[in-house]
């Protein structure tokens, strides 16, 4: 044994699971215990970013002479044994090792953007450089003209990963083509890290795990379009990502990858961080620009598009985090390599946040065109508790549903759009038979209507009215023509709204009506088939199963249950608050829920 490396997963998930304590436990254990003297020189410990399967945190890699062993669910008190038995004794602690599902989770993934996440130390620029980091920047400044860079990105077929899927090279070319007059010659490149979809954490993981890739993407983009200033617009709710980005920018500046006269090329470019104050709409590019300018984050009509009139009225390119993080890999490995992944019109890979009722939840990166079935059953390991899959929601609050009969669909921009959903920024929520689709629509609508900026009428009032109608349907107070009204209002809000938020906000409603209309109809009849909508449920004791154990009586917070010991109990419906505590606590299935 000549070399020992310990890598502790310390993204936000890893830290929440106790990663910091695990790392210091390794530190003290290795210092105190009798580690072979020859190892001390070659021993290193690293915090690394998210590798996707946060559910199994804290994940720890022990690399002895580059042979990797991965442990899951590690707590500080387990560290001593790993040091004693594995590192000193040479025998890995087998019961704590990751299992087959961990390997299955990774097997069908192809990692480009995330290739170094979870492997390198995001707070150490040398760690990034050691895996080939900043090679792309060097290559660009040494051998490429801005036009060459644009040509390469265009050839790669890379499209915006923020949701709209606009070809990145075309956007850069348009901005490059704007010739501002000499006094007003400034151009800008902005990294949009205002990730706000509920359940989406792709961009956070990329910045936490490999901030330098984003910086490199920005430098190359800036060179291509001729910008000398860049902004990263990032949510203040991402403190760890902000911290690591700050460290990375400072380190890159010190190494002259950004700043004045980058790598003696004569090109100047620097990056500022602008913290977002938590408005979902600021992910919309014109609202984002307004926010950087110090205005209220409200979108404006396009045209003019930001590539012509953006920040402070100057030509501006706005790219998503994942888009930019792809750039260095494309430059180093070539457009042909990148476009060898994916489908005809959707090239490369896409990062998704796989959540919901799937066994392996987490961050995944898959080639465009992979089938939904592979994602859910091979990577995701199937549905939790082996229940029945009901739908997959993609694209978050702007997206739609895909039903089980469409599982063979290819996940790419065109195919998902064809069935009324979108790739979006990469949220993917798996729903099972216990999920009420009306409730799902209501959940997304309550988010979008609260996050509407209030500027345009259809979004401000229209989404509110859609939510009100959904609310009354789930309360059993729906009116006969409410489904038609939802369809009508939904389509009008889509057509008449100013920005992407309002134009897509009705999608969860329209898409659930399209595929699950019978669930809406059932609600109008006073029934929630998934038994989720509380106001439509009634609880009662099934006398023949009730043993009179009193568990439900004790669990009931409202005092609605009465009964003698060993006698069947009763629920008083007028007192019952329908919390379901009795249903959950009964071991004899004697509580009925209808």
């Amino acid at each position: 044994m000549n070399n020992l490396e310990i890598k502790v997963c310390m993204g936000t998930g890893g830290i929440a699971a106790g990663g910091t304590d695990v790392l210091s436990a390794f530190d003290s254990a290795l210092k105190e215990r009798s580690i072979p003297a020859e190892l001390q020189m070659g021993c290193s410990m690293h915090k690394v970013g998210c590798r996707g399967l946060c559910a199994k945190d804290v994940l720890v890699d022990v690399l002895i002479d580059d042979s990797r062993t991965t442990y899951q669910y590690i707590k500080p008190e387990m560290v001593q044994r790993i040091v004693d038995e594995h590192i000193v004794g040479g025998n890995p602690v087998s019961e704590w090792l990751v299992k087959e599902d961990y390997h299955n989770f990774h097997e069908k993934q192809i990692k480009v953007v995330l290739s170094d996440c979870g492997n390198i130390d995001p707070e150490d620029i040398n760690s990034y450089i050691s895996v080939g980091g900043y090679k792309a920047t060097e290559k660009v400044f040494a051998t490429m003209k801005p036009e060459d860079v644009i040509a390469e990105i265009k050839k790669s077929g890379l499209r915006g990963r923020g949701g709209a899927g606009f070809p990145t090279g075309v956007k850069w070319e348009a901005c490059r083509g704007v010739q501002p007059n000499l006094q007003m010659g400034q151009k800008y490149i902005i990294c949009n890290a205002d990730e706000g979809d509920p359940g989406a954490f792709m961009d956070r993981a990329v910045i936490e795990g490999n901030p330098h890739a984003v910086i490199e993407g920005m430098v190359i983009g800036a060179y291509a379009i001729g910008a000398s200033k860049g902004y990263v617009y990032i949510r203040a709710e991402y403190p760890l990502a902000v911290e690591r980005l700050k460290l990375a920018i400072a380190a890159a500046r010190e190494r002259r990858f950004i700043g004045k006269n980058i790598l003696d090329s004569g090109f100047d470019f620097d990056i500022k961080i602008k913290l977002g104050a938590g408005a979902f709409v600021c992910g919309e590019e014109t609202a984002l620009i307004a926010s950087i300018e110090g205005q209220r984050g409200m979108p404006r009509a396009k045209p003019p598009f930001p590539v012509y009139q953006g920040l402070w009225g100057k030509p501006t390119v706005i790219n998503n985090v994942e888009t930019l993080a792809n750039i260095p890999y494309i430059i180093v490995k070539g457009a042909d390599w990148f476009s060898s992944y994916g489908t005809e019109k959707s090239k490369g890979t896409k990062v998704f946040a796989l959540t919901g009722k799937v066994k392996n939840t987490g961050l995944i990166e898959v080639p465009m065109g992979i089938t939904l079935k592979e994602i859910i059953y091979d990577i995701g390991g199937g549905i939790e508790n082996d229940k029945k899959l009901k739908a997959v929601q993609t694209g978050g609050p702007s997206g739609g549903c895909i039903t089980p009969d469409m599982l063979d669909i290819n996940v790419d921009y065109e195919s998902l759009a064809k069935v009324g959903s979108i790739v979006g920024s990469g949220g993917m929520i798996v729903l099972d038979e216990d999920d009420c689709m009306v409730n799902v629509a209501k959940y997304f609508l309550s988010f979008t209507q609260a996050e509407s900026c209030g500027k345009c009428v259809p979004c401000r009032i229209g989404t509110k009215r859609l939510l009100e109608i959904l609310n009354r349907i789930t309360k059993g107070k729906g009116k006969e023509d409410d489904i038609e009204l939802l369809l009508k209002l939904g389509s009008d809000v889509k057509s008449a709204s100013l920005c992407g938020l309002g134009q897509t906000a009705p999608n969860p409603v329209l898409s659930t009506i399209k595929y699950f209309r019978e669930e809406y109809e059932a609600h109008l009849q006073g029934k929630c088939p998934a038994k989720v909508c509380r106001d439509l449920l009634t609880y009662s004791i099934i006398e023949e199963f009730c043993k009179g154990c009193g568990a439900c009586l004790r669990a009931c917070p409202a005092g609605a249950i009465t009964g003698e010991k060993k006698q069947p109990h009763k629920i008083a419906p007028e007192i019952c608050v329908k919390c379901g505590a009795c249903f959950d606590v009964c071991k004899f299935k004697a509580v009925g829920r209808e």
Partner: protein
Amino acid sequence: MLKVTIDGKTIEVPAGTTVLDAAKMLDIPIPTLCHHPKLTPFGGCRLCIVEIKGIPRPVTSCTTPVSDNMEVTTSTPQIEDLRKTVLELILSDHPNDCMVCEKAGDCTLQELAYFYGIRENRFAGERRIYTKKDGNPFLERDMEKCILCGRCVKVCDEVQGVGAIDFTYRGFKSKICPPYEKDLDCEFCGQCVAVCPTGALTGKQWAHKGRQKDIKEIDTICPYCGTGCNITLHVSRNEVIRVTSKEDTWNEGWLCVKGRFGYKFINSPDRLKKPLIKKNGKFEEASWDEALDYIATRLNEIKAKHGADAIGGLSSARCTNEENYLFQKLIRAAIGTNNIDHCARL
């Protein structure tokens, strides 16, 4: 020049002209609420949407610049249907108390509701209710009637350069208010009142004084300062109840707090209507002849005893140019001194 065809009529317009302005040149009406010709386009009310050949979704004509050979249709069943939905949505969150509203008869929202025949509302639901009233002395701010067109915010920022109000909160709760929802404490120029298309912003002192349709309008010049803004006095029951200014005047319809709200002296019981002469330590009413004779006599006496330079004249910015000219003529030629000055020089 760019060629644009709107509803079959063709016109050439300079680059930068919006579709809405081009339509206006062709006398083609397009409904608007948030648009104001003197302010930058907002695109919030969505009523001015039109169809443009080659663009898949409806676009707002107020924000879309004309491009060459553009073909625009301002009214189709789909467009009118969308406009009706938008109006219904606005009215579903509006008090609809036109019966007692100060703005009735002069309200763009009311007029549009009339044209689109909106009586029932498919989207009736929760309405914003605000109990706190603004305690400022001039502006009545009834935010339940506010449709968030943003005109007041824009005029305060773009024309007046004050920025006393802005959008706050999000979604349905969005509201326009001063910082921290305090009482308005600004210049009270009332420009926001002038541009408000609904009854959300009105003058406190003209409440319940008369409907616009019963009012006699009299154009005149503001007497307050040398700027000489054009104003229009609104007279109801032989009383000036409101002052406005028209957009096609040189001051473009903008006024200050004095011109807009300082008209109460006209009907004030304390107003001097006859000259007063102090006799035995008390002011007593006198006739104009008596007063002018007295002034002439005293001026002559002072001039004879102390010389013309013992006298000085101070004129007022509230006088007209002609009055000020005559006054300096009096001091210079009749009295014979150059001691003449004007309050606007201070």
